[in-house]
Protein backbone atom coordinates (compact mmCIF):
# COMPACT_ATOMS: atom_id res chain seq x y z
CA UNK A 1 0.00 0.00 0.00
CA UNK A 2 1.39 3.39 -0.94
CA UNK A 3 0.76 6.64 0.84
CA UNK A 4 -0.68 9.70 -0.84
CA UNK A 5 -0.14 13.28 0.23
CA UNK A 6 -3.59 14.36 1.39
CA UNK A 7 -5.09 16.93 3.71
CA UNK A 8 -7.34 15.59 6.43
CA UNK A 9 -10.28 17.06 4.56
CA UNK A 10 -9.34 15.19 1.38
CA UNK A 11 -8.75 12.02 3.39
CA UNK A 12 -12.24 12.31 4.92
CA UNK A 13 -13.73 12.86 1.46
CA UNK A 14 -12.05 9.67 0.25
CA UNK A 15 -13.34 7.80 3.29
CA UNK A 16 -16.85 9.07 2.53
CA UNK A 17 -16.59 8.13 -1.17
CA UNK A 18 -15.34 4.63 -0.41
CA UNK A 19 -18.11 4.14 2.15
CA UNK A 20 -20.58 4.46 -0.73
CA UNK A 21 -23.14 6.87 0.69
CA UNK A 22 -26.45 7.17 -1.15
CA UNK A 23 -27.37 10.62 0.16
CA UNK A 24 -25.13 13.47 1.37
CA UNK A 25 -27.03 16.60 2.43
CA UNK A 26 -24.46 19.23 3.29
CA UNK A 27 -23.82 22.94 3.66
CA UNK A 28 -20.31 24.40 3.40
CA UNK A 29 -18.55 26.04 6.32
CA UNK A 30 -14.89 26.67 7.12
CA UNK A 31 -12.96 24.48 7.93
CA UNK A 32 -15.24 21.67 6.75
CA UNK A 33 -15.45 23.16 3.24
CA UNK A 34 -12.57 21.17 1.71
CA UNK A 35 -14.29 17.94 2.71
CA UNK A 36 -17.40 18.71 0.78
CA UNK A 37 -15.53 20.47 -2.02
CA UNK A 38 -13.52 17.31 -2.72
CA UNK A 39 -16.49 15.01 -2.17
CA UNK A 40 -18.71 16.96 -4.55
CA UNK A 41 -15.98 16.61 -7.20
CA UNK A 42 -16.11 12.84 -6.68
CA UNK A 43 -19.85 13.00 -7.35
CA UNK A 44 -19.49 15.16 -10.48
CA UNK A 45 -16.71 12.89 -11.75
CA UNK A 46 -18.95 9.85 -11.33
CA UNK A 47 -16.77 8.37 -8.60
CA UNK A 48 -19.65 8.42 -6.08
CA UNK A 49 -23.29 7.65 -6.78
CA UNK A 50 -24.37 9.82 -3.84
CA UNK A 51 -27.25 12.25 -4.18
CA UNK A 52 -25.58 15.46 -3.04
CA UNK A 53 -28.36 17.61 -1.57
CA UNK A 54 -27.64 21.35 -1.65
CA UNK A 55 -29.53 22.40 1.43
CA UNK A 56 -29.92 25.98 2.65
CA UNK A 57 -28.52 25.44 6.15
CA UNK A 58 -27.03 22.86 8.47
CA UNK A 59 -30.39 22.58 10.23
CA UNK A 60 -31.79 21.39 6.92
CA UNK A 61 -28.73 19.22 6.22
CA UNK A 62 -29.34 17.13 9.32
CA UNK A 63 -33.09 17.14 8.78
CA UNK A 64 -32.63 15.76 5.26
CA UNK A 65 -30.06 13.29 6.56
CA UNK A 66 -32.54 11.86 9.07
CA UNK A 67 -35.18 11.28 6.40
CA UNK A 68 -32.67 9.66 4.07
CA UNK A 69 -31.16 7.42 6.73
CA UNK A 70 -34.55 6.22 7.96
CA UNK A 71 -35.73 5.63 4.41
CA UNK A 72 -32.86 3.21 3.94
CA UNK A 73 -30.15 5.29 2.26
CA UNK A 74 -26.61 5.29 3.63
CA UNK A 75 -26.27 8.91 4.65
CA UNK A 76 -23.32 11.14 5.44
CA UNK A 77 -22.75 14.83 6.12
CA UNK A 78 -20.10 17.16 7.52
CA UNK A 79 -19.98 20.50 9.30
CA UNK A 80 -18.08 22.75 11.71
CA UNK A 81 -18.62 25.25 14.50
CA UNK A 82 -21.58 27.59 13.85
CA UNK A 83 -22.92 25.06 11.38
CA UNK A 84 -22.95 22.43 14.08
CA UNK A 85 -24.54 24.91 16.46
CA UNK A 86 -27.33 25.51 13.96
CA UNK A 87 -27.57 21.76 13.36
CA UNK A 88 -27.55 20.93 17.06
CA UNK A 89 -31.31 20.84 17.55
CA UNK A 90 -31.65 18.27 14.81
CA UNK A 91 -28.62 16.24 15.95
CA UNK A 92 -30.61 15.41 19.08
CA UNK A 93 -33.54 14.39 16.88
CA UNK A 94 -31.27 12.20 14.71
CA UNK A 95 -30.00 10.38 17.77
CA UNK A 96 -33.46 9.95 19.28
CA UNK A 97 -34.87 8.67 15.98
CA UNK A 98 -31.88 6.32 15.87
CA UNK A 99 -30.78 7.50 12.44
CA UNK A 100 -27.36 6.03 11.55
CA UNK A 101 -25.64 8.99 9.91
CA UNK A 102 -21.86 9.08 9.44
CA UNK A 103 -20.58 12.62 9.70
CA UNK A 104 -17.37 14.58 9.99
CA UNK A 105 -16.86 17.60 12.20
CA UNK A 106 -13.96 19.90 11.33
CA UNK A 107 -13.52 21.21 14.85
CA UNK A 108 -13.61 25.01 15.07
CA UNK A 109 -14.20 27.46 17.89
CA UNK A 110 -17.72 28.68 18.43
CA UNK A 111 -18.35 32.41 18.16
CA UNK A 112 -17.73 34.78 19.71
CA UNK A 113 -15.52 36.45 19.10
CA UNK A 114 -15.86 35.04 15.64
CA UNK A 115 -12.92 32.79 14.84
CA UNK A 116 -12.39 30.05 12.27
CA UNK A 117 -9.65 28.08 14.00
CA UNK A 118 -9.61 24.93 16.03
CA UNK A 119 -10.96 24.13 19.40
CA UNK A 120 -13.46 21.54 20.54
CA UNK A 121 -16.26 23.80 21.73
CA UNK A 122 -18.42 22.81 18.74
CA UNK A 123 -18.23 19.09 19.42
CA UNK A 124 -18.76 19.68 23.13
CA UNK A 125 -21.92 21.64 22.35
CA UNK A 126 -23.53 18.37 21.21
CA UNK A 127 -21.84 16.26 23.86
CA UNK A 128 -25.15 15.18 25.35
CA UNK A 129 -27.03 14.76 22.06
CA UNK A 130 -26.55 11.00 22.17
CA UNK A 131 -24.23 10.64 19.18
CA UNK A 132 -20.91 8.83 18.97
CA UNK A 133 -17.89 11.18 18.83
CA UNK A 134 -14.53 9.84 17.67
CA UNK A 135 -11.54 12.20 17.84
CA UNK A 136 -8.78 11.77 15.25
CA UNK A 137 -5.14 12.65 15.93
CA UNK A 138 -4.11 13.14 12.31
CA UNK A 139 -5.30 12.80 8.70
CA UNK A 140 -4.68 9.05 8.61
CA UNK A 141 -6.85 8.53 11.68
CA UNK A 142 -9.51 10.83 10.28
CA UNK A 143 -9.68 8.65 7.15
CA UNK A 144 -9.61 5.39 9.09
CA UNK A 145 -12.33 6.48 11.50
CA UNK A 146 -14.46 7.74 8.60
CA UNK A 147 -14.21 4.30 6.99
CA UNK A 148 -15.29 2.70 10.28
CA UNK A 149 -18.05 5.24 11.02
CA UNK A 150 -20.90 3.69 8.95
CA UNK A 151 -20.15 0.25 10.38
CA UNK A 152 -20.55 1.59 13.92
CA UNK A 153 -23.54 3.81 13.11
CA UNK A 154 -25.48 1.11 11.28
CA UNK A 155 -24.80 -1.72 13.73
CA UNK A 156 -28.17 -3.04 15.01
CA UNK A 157 -27.03 -2.58 18.63
CA UNK A 158 -26.20 1.09 17.95
CA UNK A 159 -28.24 2.82 15.18
CA UNK A 160 -26.97 6.29 16.06
CA UNK A 161 -25.15 9.09 14.27
CA UNK A 162 -21.36 8.79 14.43
CA UNK A 163 -19.20 11.92 14.19
CA UNK A 164 -15.53 11.80 13.26
CA UNK A 165 -14.00 14.89 14.87
CA UNK A 166 -10.86 16.30 13.27
CA UNK A 167 -9.13 19.47 14.34
CA UNK A 168 -9.89 22.36 12.02
CA UNK A 169 -6.89 23.43 9.86
CA UNK A 170 -4.41 21.39 11.92
CA UNK A 171 -5.90 18.25 10.38
CA UNK A 172 -8.51 19.42 7.85
CA UNK A 173 -6.06 21.58 5.87
CA UNK A 174 -2.59 20.18 6.62
CA UNK A 175 -1.28 17.67 4.06
CA UNK A 176 0.23 14.45 5.37
CA UNK A 177 1.02 11.05 3.90
CA UNK A 178 -2.18 9.02 4.13
CA UNK A 179 -2.60 5.37 3.18
CA UNK A 180 -5.94 4.71 1.50
CA UNK A 181 -7.38 1.22 1.35
CA UNK A 182 -8.47 0.00 -2.10
CA UNK A 183 -12.06 0.96 -2.99
CA UNK A 184 -13.24 -2.66 -3.22
CA UNK A 185 -11.76 -3.52 0.18
CA UNK A 186 -13.65 -0.67 1.84
CA UNK A 187 -16.83 -1.56 -0.09
CA UNK A 188 -16.69 -5.09 1.32
CA UNK A 189 -15.78 -3.80 4.79
CA UNK A 190 -18.70 -1.37 5.04
CA UNK A 191 -21.17 -3.75 3.35
CA UNK A 192 -24.80 -2.98 2.67
CA UNK A 193 -26.93 -0.79 4.91
CA UNK A 194 -30.04 -2.56 6.14
CA UNK A 195 -32.46 -0.26 7.92
CA UNK A 196 -34.99 -1.78 10.31
CA UNK A 197 -38.48 -0.78 9.08
CA UNK A 198 -37.55 1.19 5.92
CA UNK A 199 -39.67 4.32 6.03
CA UNK A 200 -40.65 4.12 2.36
CA UNK A 201 -41.96 0.55 2.67
CA UNK A 202 -45.60 1.40 1.93
CA UNK A 203 -46.86 -2.10 2.66
CA UNK A 204 -45.89 -1.59 6.30
CA UNK A 205 -46.37 2.08 7.18
CA UNK A 206 -44.90 3.26 10.46
CA UNK A 207 -45.09 6.34 12.66
CA UNK A 208 -41.65 7.91 13.19
CA UNK A 209 -40.63 10.24 15.95
CA UNK A 210 -43.90 9.85 17.84
CA UNK A 211 -44.84 12.18 20.65
CA UNK A 212 -43.78 10.65 23.95
CA UNK A 213 -45.72 11.22 27.12
CA UNK A 214 -44.50 11.30 30.72
CA UNK A 215 -45.95 7.81 31.22
CA UNK A 216 -45.15 6.37 27.79
CA UNK A 217 -42.42 6.24 26.52
CA UNK A 218 -40.10 9.24 26.85
CA UNK A 219 -38.07 7.84 29.72
CA UNK A 220 -37.85 4.35 28.22
CA UNK A 221 -36.75 5.65 24.83
CA UNK A 222 -34.11 7.94 26.37
CA UNK A 223 -32.83 4.97 28.34
CA UNK A 224 -32.72 2.75 25.26
CA UNK A 225 -30.80 5.49 23.42
CA UNK A 226 -28.24 5.68 26.22
CA UNK A 227 -27.79 1.92 26.20
CA UNK A 228 -27.28 2.00 22.42
CA UNK A 229 -24.60 4.65 22.84
CA UNK A 230 -22.87 2.52 25.47
CA UNK A 231 -23.08 -0.45 23.06
CA UNK A 232 -21.13 1.61 20.54
CA UNK A 233 -17.97 1.08 22.60
CA UNK A 234 -17.98 -2.70 22.11
CA UNK A 235 -18.98 -2.23 18.47
CA UNK A 236 -16.10 0.23 18.01
CA UNK A 237 -13.68 -2.33 19.46
CA UNK A 238 -15.01 -5.10 17.17
CA UNK A 239 -15.07 -2.93 14.04
CA UNK A 240 -11.56 -1.63 14.84
CA UNK A 241 -10.29 -5.22 15.11
CA UNK A 242 -11.71 -6.02 11.66
CA UNK A 243 -10.23 -2.80 10.35
CA UNK A 244 -6.82 -3.70 11.77
CA UNK A 245 -6.90 -7.00 9.89
CA UNK A 246 -7.34 -5.04 6.65
CA UNK A 247 -5.06 -2.10 7.30
CA UNK A 248 -2.57 -3.12 9.95
CA UNK A 249 -3.57 -0.02 11.90
CA UNK A 250 -4.82 -0.58 15.42
CA UNK A 251 -7.49 1.50 17.15
CA UNK A 252 -8.46 1.21 20.78
CA UNK A 253 -10.79 3.29 22.95
CA UNK A 254 -7.74 4.80 24.63
CA UNK A 255 -4.27 5.09 23.19
CA UNK A 256 -1.56 4.73 25.81
CA UNK A 257 1.72 6.37 24.83
CA UNK A 258 4.73 5.50 27.00
CA UNK A 259 2.57 4.91 30.05
CA UNK A 260 4.81 2.15 31.43
CA UNK A 261 5.94 3.43 34.80
CA UNK A 262 4.61 6.91 34.02
CA UNK A 263 4.01 8.96 37.15
CA UNK A 264 2.68 12.04 35.38
CA UNK A 265 0.20 11.49 32.55
CA UNK A 266 -1.33 14.04 30.19
CA UNK A 267 -4.79 13.35 28.78
CA UNK A 268 -5.98 15.01 25.58
CA UNK A 269 -8.21 14.65 22.53
CA UNK A 270 -7.26 15.21 18.91
CA UNK A 271 -4.16 16.51 17.18
CA UNK A 272 -2.52 17.91 20.31
CA UNK A 273 -1.63 14.33 21.19
CA UNK A 274 1.01 14.43 18.45
CA UNK A 275 2.70 17.42 20.07
CA UNK A 276 2.49 15.78 23.48
CA UNK A 277 4.14 12.61 22.12
CA UNK A 278 7.14 14.67 21.02
CA UNK A 279 7.37 16.26 24.47
CA UNK A 280 6.99 12.87 26.16
CA UNK A 281 9.82 11.46 24.01
CA UNK A 282 12.11 14.34 24.97
CA UNK A 283 11.30 14.05 28.67
CA UNK A 284 11.63 10.26 28.66
CA UNK A 285 15.08 10.68 27.10
CA UNK A 286 15.89 12.96 30.03
CA UNK A 287 14.74 10.26 32.45
CA UNK A 288 11.36 11.71 33.42
CA UNK A 289 8.50 9.27 34.06
CA UNK A 290 5.84 10.90 31.87
CA UNK A 291 3.28 9.58 29.40
CA UNK A 292 0.18 10.37 27.36
CA UNK A 293 -3.32 8.93 27.34
CA UNK A 294 -5.30 9.90 24.26
CA UNK A 295 -9.01 9.19 24.17
CA UNK A 296 -10.53 8.36 20.77
CA UNK A 297 -14.25 7.98 21.60
CA UNK A 298 -15.28 10.90 23.82
CA UNK A 299 -18.82 9.54 23.49
CA UNK A 300 -19.23 6.82 24.58
CA UNK A 301 -16.53 7.60 27.14
CA UNK A 302 -14.38 4.50 27.80
CA UNK A 303 -14.34 4.96 31.58
CA UNK A 304 -13.12 1.45 32.45
CA UNK A 305 -10.28 1.67 29.95
CA UNK A 306 -9.28 5.11 31.25
CA UNK A 307 -9.24 3.89 34.85
CA UNK A 308 -7.20 0.84 33.91
CA UNK A 309 -4.69 2.85 31.88
CA UNK A 310 -4.20 5.36 34.71
CA UNK A 311 -3.89 2.78 37.49
CA UNK A 312 -0.18 3.55 38.04
CA UNK A 313 -0.32 7.32 37.57
CA UNK A 314 0.39 9.65 40.50
CA UNK A 315 -0.57 12.87 38.75
CA UNK A 316 -3.05 13.14 35.91
CA UNK A 317 -3.18 16.37 33.93
CA UNK A 318 -6.18 16.92 31.67
CA UNK A 319 -5.93 19.28 28.71
CA UNK A 320 -9.31 20.61 27.62
CA UNK A 321 -9.68 22.34 24.26
CA UNK A 322 -13.07 23.69 25.26
CA UNK A 323 -14.18 25.70 28.25
CA UNK A 324 -17.28 25.53 30.39
CA UNK A 325 -17.59 29.05 31.75
CA UNK A 326 -18.75 29.02 35.32
CA UNK A 327 -18.14 25.29 35.68
CA UNK A 328 -15.63 22.58 34.91
CA UNK A 329 -14.32 22.12 31.36
CA UNK A 330 -15.82 18.99 29.80
CA UNK A 331 -12.93 16.54 29.55
CA UNK A 332 -11.64 17.52 32.99
CA UNK A 333 -15.07 16.94 34.48
CA UNK A 334 -15.35 13.54 32.81
CA UNK A 335 -11.92 12.45 34.02
CA UNK A 336 -12.63 13.68 37.55
CA UNK A 337 -15.80 11.58 37.58
CA UNK A 338 -13.97 8.61 36.06
CA UNK A 339 -11.19 8.76 38.66
CA UNK A 340 -13.45 9.48 41.62
CA UNK A 341 -12.08 7.60 44.62
CA UNK A 342 -8.63 7.25 43.07
CA UNK A 343 -5.56 8.34 45.02
CA UNK A 344 -3.97 10.19 42.11
CA UNK A 345 -3.85 13.96 41.88
CA UNK A 346 -5.79 15.61 39.11
CA UNK A 347 -4.90 18.88 37.43
CA UNK A 348 -6.86 20.50 34.65
CA UNK A 349 -6.00 23.08 32.05
CA UNK A 350 -7.97 24.74 29.30
CA UNK A 351 -5.73 25.31 26.28
CA UNK A 352 -5.75 26.17 22.62
CA UNK A 353 -9.06 28.03 22.43
CA UNK A 354 -9.68 29.67 19.08
CA UNK A 355 -6.75 27.83 17.50
CA UNK A 356 -3.98 29.06 19.81
CA UNK A 357 -1.01 26.78 19.33
CA UNK A 358 0.32 24.51 22.01
CA UNK A 359 3.99 23.74 21.39
CA UNK A 360 6.36 21.13 22.75
CA UNK A 361 7.88 23.71 25.13
CA UNK A 362 4.39 24.44 26.51
CA UNK A 363 3.74 20.75 27.09
CA UNK A 364 7.11 20.41 28.86
CA UNK A 365 6.17 23.35 31.08
CA UNK A 366 2.86 21.71 31.97
CA UNK A 367 4.60 18.45 32.85
CA UNK A 368 6.95 20.51 35.01
CA UNK A 369 3.98 21.85 36.96
CA UNK A 370 3.79 25.26 35.39
CA UNK A 371 1.34 27.07 33.22
CA UNK A 372 2.70 28.83 30.14
CA UNK A 373 1.46 32.39 30.36
CA UNK A 374 -0.08 32.58 26.97
CA UNK A 375 -1.80 29.28 26.63
CA UNK A 376 -4.69 29.05 28.93
CA UNK A 377 -6.11 28.97 32.37
CA UNK A 378 -4.74 26.98 35.25
CA UNK A 379 -7.71 25.47 36.94
CA UNK A 380 -8.20 23.85 40.32
CA UNK A 381 -6.31 20.75 41.25
CA UNK A 382 -8.31 17.88 42.60
CA UNK A 383 -8.29 16.63 45.32
CA UNK A 384 -7.55 20.10 46.72
Amino acid at each position, binding site marked *: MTAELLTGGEAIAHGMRQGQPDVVPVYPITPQTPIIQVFSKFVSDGRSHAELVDVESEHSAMSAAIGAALAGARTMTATSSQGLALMAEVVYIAA*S*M*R*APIAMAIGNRALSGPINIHCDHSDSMLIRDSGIVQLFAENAQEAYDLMVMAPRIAEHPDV*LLPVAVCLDGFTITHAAEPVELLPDDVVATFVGEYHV*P*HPMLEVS*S*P*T*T*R*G*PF*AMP*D*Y*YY*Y*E*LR*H*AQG*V*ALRNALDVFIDVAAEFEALSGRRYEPVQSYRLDGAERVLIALGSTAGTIKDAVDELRDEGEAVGLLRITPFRPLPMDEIRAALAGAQRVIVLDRADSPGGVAPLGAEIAATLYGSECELERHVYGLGGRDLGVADVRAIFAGGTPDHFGVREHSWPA
Partner: protein
Amino acid sequence: MAPLKPWDELEPGGIVVPSEAAIPHTSGWRTGVKPAVDGAKCVNCLLCWLYCPDSAILLDGTTFAGFDYDHCKGCEICDEVCPVDAIEMVAEETVLPERGVR
Protein backbone atom coordinates in the same frame (compact mmCIF):
# COMPACT_ATOMS: atom_id res chain seq x y z
CA MET B 1 -54.52 2.06 29.87
CA ALA B 2 -52.64 -0.83 28.26
CA PRO B 3 -49.71 -2.22 30.25
CA LEU B 4 -46.46 -0.44 29.49
CA LYS B 5 -43.61 -2.16 27.72
CA PRO B 6 -40.13 -2.19 29.22
CA TRP B 7 -37.49 -0.10 27.44
CA ASP B 8 -35.85 -3.08 25.74
CA GLU B 9 -39.05 -4.16 24.01
CA LEU B 10 -39.55 -0.85 22.22
CA GLU B 11 -38.62 -0.37 18.57
CA PRO B 12 -35.53 1.83 18.00
CA GLY B 13 -36.55 5.46 18.29
CA GLY B 14 -40.07 4.52 19.33
CA ILE B 15 -41.18 3.48 15.84
CA VAL B 16 -44.89 2.73 15.96
CA VAL B 17 -45.92 -0.16 13.71
CA PRO B 18 -49.52 -0.40 12.46
CA SER B 19 -50.52 -3.18 14.82
CA GLU B 20 -49.62 -1.00 17.78
CA ALA B 21 -50.78 2.41 16.62
CA ALA B 22 -54.17 2.11 18.31
CA ILE B 23 -52.90 0.62 21.54
CA PRO B 24 -52.16 3.75 23.58
CA HIS B 25 -55.45 5.02 24.91
CA THR B 26 -55.48 8.76 24.40
CA SER B 27 -58.94 9.76 25.55
CA GLY B 28 -57.95 10.60 29.11
CA TRP B 29 -58.40 14.33 28.49
CA ARG B 30 -61.84 14.08 26.81
CA THR B 31 -63.77 17.32 27.12
CA GLY B 32 -66.49 16.04 29.42
CA VAL B 33 -68.93 14.97 26.73
CA LYS B 34 -68.98 11.93 24.49
CA PRO B 35 -71.04 10.95 21.46
CA ALA B 36 -73.93 8.50 21.49
CA VAL B 37 -75.91 7.42 18.43
CA ASP B 38 -79.51 6.47 17.79
CA GLY B 39 -79.00 3.32 15.72
CA ALA B 40 -82.46 3.58 14.19
CA LYS B 41 -81.79 7.06 12.76
CA CYS B 42 -78.30 6.35 11.34
CA VAL B 43 -78.28 6.17 7.51
CA ASN B 44 -74.66 4.95 7.32
CA CYS B 45 -73.44 7.96 5.32
CA LEU B 46 -70.08 7.72 7.17
CA LEU B 47 -69.65 11.49 7.28
CA CYS B 48 -68.74 11.08 10.97
CA TRP B 49 -66.01 8.59 9.99
CA LEU B 50 -64.76 10.97 7.31
CA TYR B 51 -64.66 14.01 9.56
CA CYS B 52 -63.48 12.43 12.81
CA PRO B 53 -60.01 13.99 13.42
CA ASP B 54 -58.98 10.93 15.41
CA SER B 55 -59.75 7.28 14.75
CA ALA B 56 -62.77 7.16 17.00
CA ILE B 57 -65.47 6.06 14.54
CA LEU B 58 -65.60 2.27 14.30
CA LEU B 59 -66.61 0.47 11.12
CA ASP B 60 -67.68 -3.08 10.53
CA GLY B 61 -66.52 -3.39 6.94
CA THR B 62 -68.24 -0.37 5.43
CA THR B 63 -70.97 -0.17 8.04
CA PHE B 64 -70.97 2.34 10.92
CA ALA B 65 -70.37 0.39 14.13
CA GLY B 66 -70.20 3.00 16.88
CA PHE B 67 -67.49 4.91 18.76
CA ASP B 68 -64.04 4.06 20.07
CA TYR B 69 -64.09 5.77 23.46
CA ASP B 70 -60.42 4.95 24.06
CA HIS B 71 -59.54 7.53 21.40
CA CYS B 72 -62.52 9.93 21.22
CA LYS B 73 -61.63 13.39 22.58
CA GLY B 74 -65.19 14.72 22.65
CA CYS B 75 -64.69 17.33 19.93
CA GLU B 76 -68.35 17.07 18.81
CA ILE B 77 -67.53 17.20 15.08
CA CYS B 78 -69.43 13.95 14.43
CA ASP B 79 -72.46 15.46 16.09
CA GLU B 80 -72.06 18.60 13.98
CA VAL B 81 -71.77 16.79 10.62
CA CYS B 82 -74.43 14.09 11.13
CA PRO B 83 -77.12 14.97 8.48
CA VAL B 84 -79.92 13.07 10.20
CA ASP B 85 -79.19 14.20 13.77
CA ALA B 86 -78.58 10.62 14.92
CA ILE B 87 -75.55 11.59 17.05
CA GLU B 88 -75.98 13.35 20.34
CA MET B 89 -73.31 14.46 22.83
CA VAL B 90 -73.97 13.16 26.33
CA ALA B 91 -72.26 13.79 29.65
CA GLU B 92 -69.11 11.77 30.30
CA GLU B 93 -70.67 9.86 33.18
CA THR B 94 -73.64 8.65 31.09
CA VAL B 95 -73.75 4.88 30.99
CA LEU B 96 -73.79 3.69 27.36
CA PRO B 97 -73.41 0.40 25.52
CA GLU B 98 -69.74 -0.35 24.79
CA ARG B 99 -69.74 1.36 21.39
CA GLY B 100 -72.38 3.94 22.17
CA VAL B 101 -75.14 2.66 19.86
CA ARG B 102 -78.54 3.01 21.51
